[in-house]
Each structure stands twice: as C-alpha cells, then as structure tokens.
C-alpha cells in the first residue's frame, strides 16, 4: 500500500523507474482481469497497455487516500465498459434467464439439490468453470474475476464500483451460483 503511494509520488516527479515498478507489479493482475473480460489474448495485452498509459497520463488525479490498485482497476473497468459500449454490447444487464435475475435473489437452498462439482476432477472442474465464466453476464463476471482471480476484498470491490458491499457480495454469490447452474447444464 505505502509502497504504491511512494511509487506514484516518485512517478509524478518524473522518475521513469518508479512507474516501471508499478507496471511490473500490476501487469499480470490487470491482464488476468481484462483477458477474462474480452476473451482474447492479443486484445487483452493491447488493452492492458492502454490502461497503463491512461493511468500514467491521469496520475496527477490519483488521490493517495485510496488504494492505488482500486484506482487502477477502476480505470480498467471503465475502459472495458467503453469497449462494450462501442461494440454495442449490453455489459450491465443481467440478461441471463435465471432465478438469479434480480438484485435481491432468493438464496434458498433446495432440499433436492444435486452435487455437480463432485462429478469432475479438479482440473476438469477448472476448465468447466472457465467455459461457464464466458457465458455469464459481464457485470457478474467482472466481480467474480476480481474476487477469485485478483483476490480483492469485498471492500475493495465496493470502492472500485462505488456500490454498497452487500450488493457486491450478493452479485458475487449470484455469479457463483450461475456458474454452478451452467456446470449442471454441461454434464
């Protein structure tokens, strides 16, 4: 945390090496997020570069009161939203027909629920999850990736999206249950 603040301070003073350290630190995290959102390695690499360039040019507007990582991912998230908009893809609606299709879903456990994950080996389960991840709405996919791949806390995710923690938690659970439903379809 403090290291990031120090690095941004030095970058603003024109120290090239300081920003290089920031790039090295966050490049993989950003690529994993952007890659899962656009689903294409070349495009993801290009977008990751663009996000770093954008963040460098607006570094003066970074408020050190907040975490640098959340600020950086906010830029990345907005960049991806713009990309969806330009491609005329609705990135925000939960367009999947599902019982999870609202903000206050019923998290009631069914007594006849079947075990899906147990049917697969761990490596196979990972592959199935990756496939299912591509099918869930981008707004839920984004939160799932932040939580489980980028390992953000719910507080950090709420800070990035500017929405209450409770809503973020519900949406992450929705994402996981949607993926589970899709795994069931795949069996």
């Amino acid at each position, binding site marked *: 945390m403090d290291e990031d603040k120090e690095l941004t301070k030095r970058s603003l003073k024109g120290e090239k090496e300081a920003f290089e350290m920031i790039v090295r630190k966050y*490049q993989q995290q950003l690529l994993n997020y952007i890659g899962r959102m656009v689903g294409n*390695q070349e495009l993801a690499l290009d977008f990751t*570069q663009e996000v770093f360039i954008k963040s460098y040019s607006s570094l003066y507007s970074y408020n050190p009161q907040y975490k640098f990582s959340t600020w950086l991912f906010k830029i990345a998230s907005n960049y991806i939203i713009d990309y969806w908009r330009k491609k005329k893809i609705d990135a925000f609606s939960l367009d999947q027909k599902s019982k999870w299709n609202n903000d206050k879903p019923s998290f009631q*456990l069914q*007594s006849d629920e079947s075990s899906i994950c*147990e049917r697969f080996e*761990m490596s196979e389960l990972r592959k199935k999850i990756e496939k299912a991840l591509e099918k869930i709405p981008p707004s839920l996919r984004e939160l*799932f990736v932040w939580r489980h791949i980028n390992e953000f806390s719910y507080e950090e995710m709420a800070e990035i999206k500017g929405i209450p923690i409770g809503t973020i*938690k519900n949406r992450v659970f929705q994402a996981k249950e949607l993926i589970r439903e899709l795994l069931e379809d795949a069996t």
Partner: protein
Amino acid sequence: MNCLRINQIYLYLEGELSPAENKSIEEHLSSCLICKKAVKERKLLLQASRSLPLWNTPPDFTQQVMTRIFPEKVSLRSLLIVMAAGSSLIFLTFLTYLLISDQNLADFLISLGQTLLNLVRNLSILFVKLYKLASLLVKIILQFSEFLLKGFDSLTTILSPELQIILITFTLILSAFILFRVKKTLLTGERS
C-alpha cells in the same frame, strides 16, 4: 437453527462471519445432511475458482509499455556523432574523387562555386515568380468574394424574406440535382 441459505454458506466458507455465527453454523452442519452436502459442493466450487490458471504477460511487456509512455528521444551526443560521421564521409568522398579524376583542386573549386551560384540565381528567379503569381491569385479571390458579398447584400435588400427562402431552397435543389447528374454521368462513363 433453520437450514442455511446459499449466501450464508458462501460467507461461512469465505471466513466473512463472526466466530459466534461460525459456531452456530457448524452446530447445524453436524446434524443436517442437506446443508452439509451443499457446503461441500460450494467448497469444491470455491477451491476450483481460486486456482484457475493465470494468464502470463510476455517477457518484454513492461518494456513495450514503457516505450509507449516514454518514447526514445535522440540525444544531442548521438546527433553530433551522426553529423560528424556524415561530414567525414563527404570529405573522404571529395578527396577520393580528386585523386581518381586527377583534377586540379583550384579548377574543381571554381567549377563547384559557379554551379552553386547558378543554382542560387535560378532558384531566386523561380521564388520571385511564384510570389508574384500567389499575390495575384489572392487579389483575384478577394475581389471575387467582395463582389459576391455585395451581390448577396443587394439581393437581401431587394427581395422579401419569403422569396429569399424560396430562392435558397431552389438553389439547393438545383445544386443537388446537378451533383446527382454529374455523379450519374461519371458512373456511366466508368461502366462504359
């Protein structure tokens, strides 16, 4: 305790609950097979989700980003080196030419001077002519636009606003028609 809700299961597995809440859930799990099975299922899902393969950046990625942010600038030192090398090359070529052609240095310098003088004289004549032509063109354009403005001004004073609108609309339609005809003629020409 009633059966667990799915969000409770996730909060429990992710360690987001208080010790008291955890304890009551564990007590319930020890006696409820349905919830135990559901917890096991979500635990597997979480384990797999947390260990998804990572995408790796290429080895030169950082360098690519840094080059795009800070493009390489040519330093003054390297610029001076290039200039010195260029001058030396010209000098060497000149010396080699003198040695091969067996020409007198004084004669060569005189002919070079005359060639340069002719070039400067011809170029200055060309520039003067071009300047005269450009100033004449500007004068014509200015006079023509002044004439157009005056004509338009007198038209607006003579004609009523309604008639002006009709006239402008008619002119626009006529221009569009002419453009259309020209385009059509050109296309027909291309086809034939």
